[in-house]
């Protein structure tokens, strides 16, 4: 036992004195902050989605959807107010003197009764003024931005059905920040043969508003049915399904209906961006351990007696890129074979999807982004491998790099909400992230100048990083020293030593 404890002590000391241990300790709170704060920050930065409803049935559905949007905003305000009250108000005094208001602030739910009380109390403004004497500090309440905002349809309501698609296109791409248009046709109802409502939007990646409208329509259909046929039946027992189809003015089909192919075209780059991340994770270990093995067994000397360090690194990068592309092709082939074996009908669908992705003409650009992304990160990992004398050494440097690589995953929701918004645009101009975000945004037609600029930036970053990481690789691949300090590493990458 004593010997086991001696080994344990030695192992413990080895572990806790590694740089990787210290870095992982520091990384944990960083991750907590990134994982907890960034999504909230993204949510707060997501703009309110303005929409309108063209209701050809007389207006009842438009009214229902507008009311649902207003309720949604009120619920969000009430919840925010409740969270605010917990910190900034003396709730005990409030409960004693204004119990009705305290109940509104204490309840964290969407129940209609609390909402009715909230309205009765004057909504946000009323509650804020009533609770003024109970403030513990001077922090003012800032109401949250509503998720959805209903705008009157204006001239759209007068547009004939024949001209509707054209007008929708103009309005959605116009300057009045309209995010979606809902069209309720004449005769829309819960009946099986009812015509379908239409949801027009240029951002198929963000289904939040579409789901919201569907839910509001369903609720309205249920309300109507219950009022007409069974006023005594509990609402939960009756579940109509509002028919709502998604349309995109840019959709490939003649009637602009958002088909599976359109969705594939929209999501394929996102999937590819995700696969790029996956490939980077898969390759990182292989690249690192490969270089470390070559260093420790002195194969690297034999190799460098045959080729230059630049040729050696370039060969490794190209090999990794080719293997990754082969992986993608094999995954696609396995998908097709699997579908052919188990879902024979799906093969033609998958074939159609692939054809539609090819038809967009985005494929060369997507592949360019993919290869650039891979080269950028593979060159970083190769440089790390060249500086490490053991896997443990490498881990100390891989940790921070992995945080860098993971960041796009955390930012994905922001892009889904608003692919051409400020966050997405800013992220596209951060050189190491350009391949991911450019790839992701391509289907949403970012401005041409942005595509050209980001592509040039991406190519320049790739070339520059491969060259500079090549320098680091050449400088370290023959040494058996511990990895240099970060400052020295940056100076070396910049060619200052």
């Amino acid at each position, binding site marked *: 036992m004593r010997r086991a404890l001696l080994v344990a002590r030695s192992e413990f000391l080895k572990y806790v004195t590694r740089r990787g241990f210290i870095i992982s300790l520091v990384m944990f709170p960083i991750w907590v902050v990134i994982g907890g704060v960034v999504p909230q920050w993204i949510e707060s930065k997501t703009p309110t989605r303005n929409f309108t409803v063209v209701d050809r049935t007389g207006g009842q559905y438009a009214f229902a959807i507008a009311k649902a949007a207003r309720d949604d905003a009120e619920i969000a305000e009430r919840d925010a107010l409740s969270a605010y009250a917990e910190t900034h108000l003396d709730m005990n005094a409030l409960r004693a003197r204004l119990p009705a208001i305290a109940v509104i602030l204490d309840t964290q739910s969407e129940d209609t009764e609390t909402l009715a009380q909230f309205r009765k109390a004057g909504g946000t403004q009323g509650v804020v003024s009533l609770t003024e004497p109970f403030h513990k500090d001077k922090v003012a309440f800032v109401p949250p931005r509503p998720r959805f905002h209903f705008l009157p349809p204006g001239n759209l309501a007068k547009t004939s059905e024949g001209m509707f698609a054209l007008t929708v296109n103009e309005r959605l791409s116009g300057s009045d920040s309209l995010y979606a248009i809902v069209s309720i046709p004449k005769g829309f109802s819960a009946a099986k043969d009812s015509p379908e409502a239409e949801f027009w939007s240029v951002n198929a990646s963000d289904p939040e508003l579409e789901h919201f409208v569907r839910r509001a329509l369903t609720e309205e259909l249920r309300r109507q049915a219950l009022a007409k046929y069974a006023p005594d039946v509990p609402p939960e027992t009756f579940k109509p399904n509002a028919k709502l189809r998604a349309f995109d003015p840019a959709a490939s089909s003649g009637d602009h209906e958002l088909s599976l192919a359109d969705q594939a075209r929209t999501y394929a780059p996102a999937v590819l961006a995700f696969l790029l991340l996956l490939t980077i994770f898969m390759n990182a270990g292989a690249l690192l351990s490969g270089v470390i093995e070559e260093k420790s*067994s002195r*194969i690297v000397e034999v190799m460098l007696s045959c080729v230059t360090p630049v040729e050696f690194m370039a060969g490794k990068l190209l090999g990794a890129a080719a293997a990754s592309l082969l992986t993608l092709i094999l995954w696609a082939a396995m998908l097709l074979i699997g579908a052919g074996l188990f879902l024979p009908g799906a093969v033609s669908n998958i074939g159609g999807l692939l054809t539609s992705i090819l038809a967009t003409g985005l494929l060369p650009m997507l592949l360019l982004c993919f290869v650039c992304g891979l080269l950028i990160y593979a060159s970083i990992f190769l440089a790390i491998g060249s500086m490490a004398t053991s896997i443990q050494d490498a881990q100390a440097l891989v940790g921070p790099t992995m945080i860098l690589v993971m960041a796009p995953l955390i930012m994905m929701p922001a892009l889904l909400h608003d692919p051409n918004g400020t966050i997405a645009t800013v992220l596209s101009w951060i050189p190491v992230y350009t391949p991911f975000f450019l790839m992701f945004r391509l289907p949403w037609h970012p401005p041409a100048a942005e595509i050209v600029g980001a592509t040039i930036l991406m190519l320049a970053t790739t070339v520059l990083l491969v060259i500079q990481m090549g320098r680091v690789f050449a400088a370290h691949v023959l040494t058996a020293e511990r990895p240099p300090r970060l400052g020295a590493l940056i100076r070396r990458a910049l060619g200052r030593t």
Partner: protein
Amino acid sequence: MSAPALELDHVTKRFGDFTAVRDLSFAHQAGRILGFLGPNGAGKTTTLRMMLGLMKPDEGSLRILGQNPGRVRDRIGYLPEERGLYKRMRADAVVAYLAQLKGLDRTTAYGRAHAMLNRFGLSQFARVRVEGLSKGMAQKVAFIATLAHDPEVLILDEPFSGLDPLNRQSFEGAIRNLARDGKTILFSTHTMEQAERLCDHLIILAHGNKVFDGTLSEAHRLLPRRARIGAEADLGFLRNLQGVASVAPPTPEQPCWDIALKEGADGGALLAACFEQRVALSHFDLSEPSLQDVFVSLAGREAQGPQ
């Protein structure tokens, strides 16, 4: 005389404040075997790396086959101390791969690989992964990989380490044959006996400095021949002989008198003097200094630094 195959001119290499190689100059003719000797940290590996073009000197210049090392990469074969092979590759594939990197086309490279594996008795292991070979076999494969592209200069770093006596003998034979075929060979080693058996030219490094550059016989002449004489009587009278440099009495570790001779001195004169003085001898031997003695003497002197 033709131009030297290896030529270093006042080469210095530093790593930060540490000088690994200091003002090293030597020239080595083609078709000869150069032994590159030195204790650990003497600067051997750094010099080899500069000759291979893996590192550039901070001062001075290197010429391999009359050119910069980087320009004659394909005319050099290099065998590192450890195997230097990809473990997961097959024996024939790794030989052919390295030969292709040295400029051979695929067909020729595989042809050479199989022919040489056959010549070294490894044909049945040609398709075995390197990790499945014994240490000796892997060393042979590495040696074959060094030769497969028919280089003019061979740089071998500790080529005999880990080999059993039979394989060592076979390697020595192969190296002699290569020199006979006109190849220029440089090998670094710690094993003095091998250097004595193989080398025409020796360079000894210690602490980055060249402490010897010459032939084996020149190295032997650096230290005096010694006589060891066993006798009960006092042999101090031998100090008066003309060819004697020093006389040391027996010690518990060395029970004989130790007499160092001057260059060209006749050992027979010692015997004659002892007979003349009627001294009874129990032991007499006369020996040349070994390379080991020379090496220890030179490297030790360098380690002590200037007095």
